[in-house]
């Protein structure tokens, strides 16, 4: 049932650019995601100069920027705020989500469920190109008058309502990105429900597929309210409405000529209705990747697979009703703040279950310390720190001094940077052989891992100290406040670690491209893994499998007693 002939006849642009093959689209998403991650990281490295050495001209690079951004190499506050807003937006919506969901999801969900493609290939292509438009608008917004959006990635009105044109471009970009995610999530849900291979029941699905399944529901149901909010803010900015503008505003000494009557908190509700589930959109695929890699590299089944599945479903569900813990300081009533504190405490339980199950999976295994396994193992304590430091932020009393400080920055970066992004690196090292037919270099991989691990902790650990000291986030010049001055040496330290972290990515970039040429050629199943993607050729042809796979058992049948090999693939009818 091979369909390879079809794709050979296609012209280049249909095969590699406007392709409907989930694998090509997955690679497109993945590469764009990686490029945006690099771009977003560069924005942050610029900010780190200003934070470490406020008001000093940026050496060499400083002269490359126009007067709009830097004067004599000294960064303007406008530019700092643009960098901050765009770093957040790009990392979340253009970096991690496209790589984790668009890239890994698109490439491996159909393979892991034994499907020839996604359920709606043309829709899939459209999602990517709509995403691409969104990405282009976001980057282009730096060049409109006044520069890019500068009201933070949260874009709280009224500030964002009265901001420069960049904000309008940001909103348009967001509408594109949201539309793309919606189309994508419909595709994932239908694919996972309908196109599983025969015998692949829901409880035989690899955990990664479960993670993508729950993630898709989060995207499907949480993103539209932000689209609604985006439309409302566009109306405020373009049509002069006052959805988020109360009556009687005076900006810079002049009364605003708007009707008023709006409510700034409306935006925050609609925004966080998405943005809290969005946190789980970032973390769930990462957990899925880690589960795959841990099972494969411990050579034993995942501990408590079923409770992990129940936990991830519960986690997804609960993530819709905790959002207002981002708004504890907006003056809500004590009953509602109690409600959101309780839901926030409850949602920590399934996360603890998943993390514990993954850690317990190591016990009794035979652990291979391959590069993907190193990244996956590091994910566990790093995500643990991120999760634990969420605790003081989830209680209103301890949230008071910590809210909107560097403590928050440290907390969520531990979740998404050494958490999710490490898991994504793990996924790249793990699945690279499937996508290219070659392995990445272990030596370069280990260099990449150890330096990244050290420097990333050097970046985020000191932030907790700064946060406890009360240093607010989004400060162009922390030296202005007496309470922020004692921790300024930490800022210098963080910046040096951040730039070193940048250098530590060079081995990865070399490895990523170099291995295309020099990487060791591998067969279908180089890691001796059990799940279905390893039953397809490397790289899989158009249509994926040589024969339609039939599934006989669960996803992690490693070291089954009485078997000759220590792995028993899902599609193997007889004994191995």
């Amino acid at each position, binding site marked *: 049932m091979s369909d390879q002939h079809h794709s050979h006849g296609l012209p280049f642009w249909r095969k590699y650019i406007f392709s409907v093959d989930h694998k090509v689209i997955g690679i497109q998403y993945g590469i764009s995601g990686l490029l945006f991650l690099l771009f977003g990281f560069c924005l942050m490295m610029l900010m780190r100069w200003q934070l470490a050495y406020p008001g000093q001209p940026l050496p060499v690079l400083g002269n490359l920027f126009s007067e709009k951004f830097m004067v004599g190499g000294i960064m303007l506050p406008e530019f700092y705020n643009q960098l901050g807003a765009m770093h957040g937006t790009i990392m979340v919506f253009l970096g991690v989500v496209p790589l984790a969901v668009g890239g890994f999801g698109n490439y491996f969900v159909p393979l892991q469920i034994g499907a020839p493609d996604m359920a709606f290939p043309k829709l899939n292509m459209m999602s990517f190109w709509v995403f691409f438009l969104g990405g282009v608008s976001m980057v282009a917004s730096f060049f409109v008058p006044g520069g890019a959006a500068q009201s933070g990635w949260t874009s*709280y009105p009224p500030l964002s309502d009265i901001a420069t044109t960049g904000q309008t471009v940001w909103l348009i970009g967001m509408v594109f990105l949201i539309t793309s995610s919606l189309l994508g999530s419909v595709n994932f849900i239908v694919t996972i429900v309908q196109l599983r291979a025969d015998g692949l029941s829901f409880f035989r699905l690899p955990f990664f597929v479960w993670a993508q399944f729950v993630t898709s529901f989060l995207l499907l149901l949480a993103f539209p309210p932000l689209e609604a909010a985006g439309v409302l803010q566009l109306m405020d900015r373009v049509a002069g409405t006052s959805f988020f503008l109360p009556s009687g*505003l005076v900006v810079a000494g002049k009364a605003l000529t708007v009707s008023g009557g709006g409510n700034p908190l409306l935006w925050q509700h609609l925004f966080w209705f998405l943005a809290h589930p969005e946190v789980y959109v970032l973390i769930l695929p990462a957990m899925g990747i880690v589960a795959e890699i841990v099972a494969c590299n*411990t050579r034993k089944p995942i501990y408590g697979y079923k409770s992990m599945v129940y936990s991830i479903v519960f986690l997804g569900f609960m993530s819709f009703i905790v959002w207002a813990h981002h708004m504890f*300081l907006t003056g809500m009533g004590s009953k509602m703040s109690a409600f959101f504190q309780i839901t926030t405490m409850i949602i*920590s339980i399934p996360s603890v279950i998943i993390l514990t199950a993954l850690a317990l999976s190591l016990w009794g295994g035979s652990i291979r310390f391959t590069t993907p396994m190193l990244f996956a193992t590091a994910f*566990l*304590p790093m995500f643990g720190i991120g999760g634990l430091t969420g605790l003081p932020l989830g209680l209103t009393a*301890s949230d008071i001094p910590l809210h909107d400080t560097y403590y928050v920055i440290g907390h969520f970066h531990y979740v998404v940077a050494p958490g999710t992004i490490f898991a994504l690196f793990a996924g790249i090292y793990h699945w690279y052989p499937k996508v290219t037919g070659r392995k990445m270099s272990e030596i370069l991989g280990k260099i990449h891992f150890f330096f990244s691990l050290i420097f990333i902790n050097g970046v985020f650990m000191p932030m907790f100290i700064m946060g406890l000291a009360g240093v607010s986030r989004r400060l162009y010049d922390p030296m202005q*406040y007496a309470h922020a001055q004692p921790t300024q040496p930490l800022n210098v330290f963080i910046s040096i670690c951040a730039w070193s972290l940048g250098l530590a990515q060079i081995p990865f970039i070399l490895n990523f491209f170099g291995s295309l040429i020099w990487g060791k050629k591998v067969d279908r199943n180089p890691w001796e893994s059990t799940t279905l993607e390893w039953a397809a050729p490397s790289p899989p042809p158009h249509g994926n499998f040589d024969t339609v796979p039939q599934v006989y058992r669960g996803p992690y049948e490693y070291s089954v007693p009485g078997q000759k090999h220590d792995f028993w693939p899902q599609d193997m009818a007889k004994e191995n």
Partner: protein
Amino acid sequence: MPKYYGWGLPYNASAYGAEIDRLIYVLHVFMILLFVGWFAFLLIALFKFRSRPGHKAEYKHNHFKAPSYLEVGVALFEAVLLLGFSFPIARHTRAFPAKGEALEVRIVAEQFAWNIHYPGPDGVFGKTDIKLIGPANALGLDRTDPAAKDDITAINQLHVPVNKPVVVHLSSKDVIHSFFLPVMRVKQDIIPGQNIPVWFQAKASGNFEIACAQLCGLGHYRMRGFFIVDEPDKFSAWLAKFAPKVAVPAPVPAPATAAAPVVLAV
């Protein structure tokens, strides 16, 4: 003079700040214990079960009891945090002092300054009107209002007496700001269109800071105010110095359209 700011929590000058600090310490001890225990387990597992010749993975899992205890323990501890710490503290921070017992102050935030408004000896805030806002009258205080005659206004300087409850009524002229007194463990978002009260009581005098904790525009980083806790007599002296001369000529109300030159912008 104690050192107010360093690498940990700032100096606590607040009557109820100790409770919040205690919660933060308890939480961090718990977090560190949990993490260290869990991390030790991780390291042992990684070492003990490393792949090596002659070592094989086990298909069957050990039936661990500890994780379920751990889960229950964590859940119980979270319940204790909520019921034993967070809710009682919230009840405390939300229990406003009785009228007349506290010093009442209005603070109107704007890009990028804190306008402080004391009601004066009569204890009543004078009327304000956005039409009156101008370079010399950032609050838009209507001095023709009898209640406004004795009102005292200041910019970026909040003086309060020690050991007396203070209620601050927060509002904003333009965008969202966040009123942050690090030493007082007070932080409250200021939502335009709303009037949100917070209260605190200083237990030590000193020269502290007001910070803005919510991104409010280009000058957010320098929206710094002074927060001065004085002995009661010094505070009264300061108030007296700033009190308006009794016979203030009523200012000519400026029409809304004749907007003053923009002095408050960056």
